[in-house]
């Protein structure tokens, strides 16, 4: 029974930690990723994202805690469970003197049992057909990233770990990869664990988000929670702001007048029902010129959470 409960988590870490001398790169990290989920691991540069991914892949030995991937305890240098795991860690390096197809052939041989046809399939899927016989060393950054993703997807893994997958891609490429990852999770039930430092990028894709800062898990939430947590406010413009402010205040909606002739309300009922505010303003003889529900920018919210410059605490 306990085993069944554990198996539903594709990734599970328990107080995972890594210390380099005096530096605690990752500290007491506990997270769980369910099957078929896209989990975004968000953090600033140096927050511990890559160290965590390397520990999940058995490339770095944790100094504390443990990690389980696909129900197997991760051990350094082990052969399991990597047949069912694809990954792209940091820069998408490839053998520069080998062609795109040859680099994929290397990966295919490193995953015994993967059929030859998988190479042409993944080349087609990642839009690399025109570059199949080009040396990897001369690829553009965007195509090198596509090759890195192709290497991760070649053997049809159940779990994909991607470190900053949008790096080097142009806006069209980012949309294309987003669609591809959504397709993989929806149609094939693949689980995706991806790191990023851009909240806006992952909010359109992820089911859940974990925010890591200075090696510690700051907050874990699903997308609905993210929407709830973002600061919202109602912006009001009328001909007579003073009169509007007095009327709304009398009706239990005290506001603040900001420079630029804007009245700001931050009560939830006002934000959720701007039509009521409009009615009150009409009754007070100061009908609104503009009513706008403003949501906090995702990046502003992220910076506020991590307490970095640019985000108010």
């Amino acid at each position, binding site marked *: 029974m306990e085993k069944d409960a554990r198996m539903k988590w594709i990734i599970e870490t328990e107080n995972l930690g890594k210390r380099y001398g005096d530096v605690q790169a990752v500290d007491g990290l506990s997270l769980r990723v369910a099957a078929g989920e896209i989990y975004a691991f968000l953090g600033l540069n140096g927050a511990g994202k890559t160290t965590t991914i390397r520990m999940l892949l058995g490339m770095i030995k944790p100094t504390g805690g443990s990690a389980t991937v696909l129900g197997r305890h991760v051990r350094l240098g082990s052969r*399991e469970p990597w047949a069912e795991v694809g990954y792209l860690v940091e820069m998408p*390096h490839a053998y520069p*003197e080998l062609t795109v197809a040859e680099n994929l052939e290397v990966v295919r041989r*490193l995953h015994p049992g993967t059929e030859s046809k998988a190479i042409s399939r993944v080349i087609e899927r990642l839009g690399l057909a025109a570059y199949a016989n080009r040396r990897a060393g001369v690829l553009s950054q965007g195509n090198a990233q596509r090759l890195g993703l192709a290497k991760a997807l070649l053997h049809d893994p159940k779990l994909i770990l991607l470190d900053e997958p949008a790096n080097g891609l142009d806006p069209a490429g980012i949309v294309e990869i987003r669609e591809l990852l959504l397709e993989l999770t929806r149609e094939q039930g693949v689980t995706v664990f991806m790191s990023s430092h851009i909240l806006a990028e992952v909010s359109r894709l992820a089911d859940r988000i974990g925010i890591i800062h200075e090696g510690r898990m700051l907050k874990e939430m699903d997308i609905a929670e993210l929407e709830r947590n973002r600061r919202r406010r109602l912006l009001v413009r009328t001909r007579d702001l003073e009169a509007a402010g007095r009327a709304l205040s009398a009706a239990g909606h005290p506001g603040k007048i900001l420079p630029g002739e804007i009245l700001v309300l931050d009560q939830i009922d006002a934000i959720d029902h701007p039509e009521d505010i409009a009615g009150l303003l009409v009754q007070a003889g100061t009908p609104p010129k503009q009513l706008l529900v403003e949501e906090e920018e995702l990046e502003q919210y992220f910076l506020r959470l991590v307490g970095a410059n640019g985000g108010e605490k």
Partner: protein
Amino acid sequence: MKTLASMVWIELRKARRSTMPLFTALGSLFMPLGLAFLLFVSKNPEISRQLGLISTKATLMADTAATWPVFLATFAQVLAIGGLFLCVLIASWVFGREFTDGTLKDLLAVPVERAGILLAKFIVVALWSGALAVLIFGSGLLVGALFRLPGGSPDILLQGIGRAAITACLAIAAGVPFAFFASLGRGYLLPIGAIIMTLIMANLVTAAGWGEYFPWAIIGIYAQGKDALPSASFVVVTLTGLIGMIGTYLWWKYADQNR
């Protein structure tokens, strides 16, 4: 076995597509061509006079190597030093390139035993070094034949070839630990620096009279063929190769890999 063959295929493909085989082959040919030049100068006194001091040295060296037995012994020594250096160069490239090119991470979380990946690399280092030894010694034999060196017989030639083959095997075994240095230093710098230091040490140790127990001095002493080496010397070189392999394996399996 099938997986090992597949891993060897990968390593051979990587090597074949690079410029390294060409450069190491050119480096290898430098040795027999250099000796051919010295023989040529010594056999052409007019050119010798024009070249002055170089010709004096060349005549001295070429005169001493002007018979098959001496020529073969000289060549075995060239193979001992040059061959060891080339072998270290190849091992440094085969192992160190994964760190320098950032491709190491693609070899780590895979369903293939790490021992298989490493064994394939060692096999390719041995095959490559062996091929260069054949190239060096083969072209050396050609040089000797072209200059019609005296004193040759099938027995002497076979003996020379046997000595060269064993010298090459010793050099390959003694070169293995440098794969560990390439892994430890995550690139080419440490093994290249280490081989230079090791060759200096080999000279000092030989001068001190302990050469037959220092793996990298043993190769040179064996190649000279003057003193019979104790069996322990061959055991020392074999152990050096084994320790190098085991050390490399342990490092690849248990060290944190951040690149």
